[in-house]
């Protein structure tokens, strides 16, 4: 036997230790600096772009889910799966051309939110589709058999039945958007929010972009960088954990 159970467990524990180190070091070192100047504004900017991007991505994602809820996965799903592997960096480059330059939105939170929505579009559409198809007791089919039109069934039965799964997809999309740097760097700018709020049309650094900027400016040891890292980790992890898919409990075999 090449791998023993112990070796498996050791590998796994290695991963666990890495995870714990990443989280732990941040919490301990960052805690003292959580309220470094400027961080509040960036936290607000981060949350604002995330919420805006979710609002922008929800209609198309739910629209696709509604249209394809009763179809077998086909070319649309295959295409979405393919483009969901598009690196965020590429999405950021496109968003710079589309939103910042062509649409004239400039470096702004609106551009950033649209860029994030573009990044999350295939992910959210696939996630929403999976969520509505998971309607295990097929209450939707039951309603169709009553002679209720598909759009009505989707709204009245399928959406409420899959609300939990959809919410978890939204949380995962939010986690991706919250920690995203490449997209926002090209769309929302890198400077910290000033004391006066500049609104959604103003450019503003989000936590992730600011952390990248500070680190790449050689200021990664400062209080602001640590505060950014702390907030990013705490909120990112919270979103990811809250949004983690419910899976069937690990089956207990044999013994």
């Amino acid at each position: 036997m090449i791998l023993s159970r112990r070796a498996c467990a050791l590998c796994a524990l290695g991963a666990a230790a890495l995870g714990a180190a990443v989280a732990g070091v941040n919490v301990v070192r960052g805690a003292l600096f959580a309220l470094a100047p400027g961080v509040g504004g960036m936290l607000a900017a981060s949350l604002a772009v995330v919420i805006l991007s979710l609002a922008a991505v929800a209609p198309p994602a739910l629209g696709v889910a509604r249209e394809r809820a009763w179809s077998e996965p086909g070319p649309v799903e295959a295409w979405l799966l393919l483009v969901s592997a598009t690196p965020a960096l590429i999405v950021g480059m496109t968003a710079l051309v589309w939103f910042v330059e062509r649409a004239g939105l400039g470096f702004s939170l609106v551009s950033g939110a649209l860029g994030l929505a573009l990044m999350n579009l295939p992910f959210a559409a696939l996630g929403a589709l999976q969520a509505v198809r998971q309607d295990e007791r097929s209450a939707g089919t039951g309603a169709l058999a009553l002679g209720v039109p598909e759009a009505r069934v989707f709204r009245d039965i399928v959406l409420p039945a899959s609300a939990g799964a959809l919410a978890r997809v939204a949380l995962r999309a939010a986690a991706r958007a919250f920690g995203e740097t490449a997209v926002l760097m090209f769309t929302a700018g890198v400077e910290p929010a000033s004391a006066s709020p500049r609104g959604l049309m103003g450019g503003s650094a989000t936590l992730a972009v600011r952390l990248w900027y500070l680190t790449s400016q050689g200021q990664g040891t400062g209080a602001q960088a640590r505060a950014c890292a702390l907030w990013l980790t705490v909120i990112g992890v919270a979103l990811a954990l809250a949004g983690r898919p419910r899976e069937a409990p690990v089956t207990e075999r044999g013994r």
Partner: protein
Amino acid sequence: MAWRWLLAAAVLGGLAPWLLRSVPVRIRVAGSTAFLPLVLRMVAAYRREHPGVEIDVTGGGSGFALAQLQRGVVDVGVSDLPRAAPRLVTRPWARTPVLMVVARRLGVTAIRRSAIRSLRGSSRPVWPGTRRPVIFVERPYGSGTQALVERWAGPLNPRLRPVILGANGLVAQVVAATAGATGFLDASDLRADLVPLRLDGVTPTLANVAAGRYPLVLTARILTRARPGGEVRRLVRALTSTRAVAAAGRPLGYLPP
């Protein structure tokens, strides 16, 4: 049903930039990080005098400012690059010395231009008087500092493998941590464990820059697209006032042109 929503969204999307832009006047400024402290100081003063105007300031570097000016994303750019930019209007603005630094513990405090040139041209450069190899920390293409250094100190021997860093702050960090390393940066990124070298016997001070003695001086220009509109023109005029640059710049390490 969905088509109707899509149509509405498309119309709204088409109108959005116009709707949103017509809110208050918003001027976007971007440019050289070496001159960012001065820009921020002067823009803050301008904001106090013109409360109705929104001004966004982003660093991003000279190359970034040039590119985004041409894209129409930025209204005012600050560039310390010598290269000309087509269809952009250029105005001289401010100067600052570029420091050649080494780690304090290396013990070197002065160097002559000829010595630097021969070190940069050598395939195995060694610090004079020691056997410690020279490690060059450079800036990428698009940096005004790098362009200035290459013009003054000559190109690097192509067989060398320099560390290339995206920002002066990083240069400071790496040079301080690496014995034998040397790089160039502006005064605002100097730290206590670095020594700015005397070049050809001249100490890098503002007085020496003003007197024309210090050889490595970075000049920044303010750029706009041709014939900027009212608010932008007013801001540019305020920024390029020699007296204002002198007053705001001296304590930060900048001089008017």
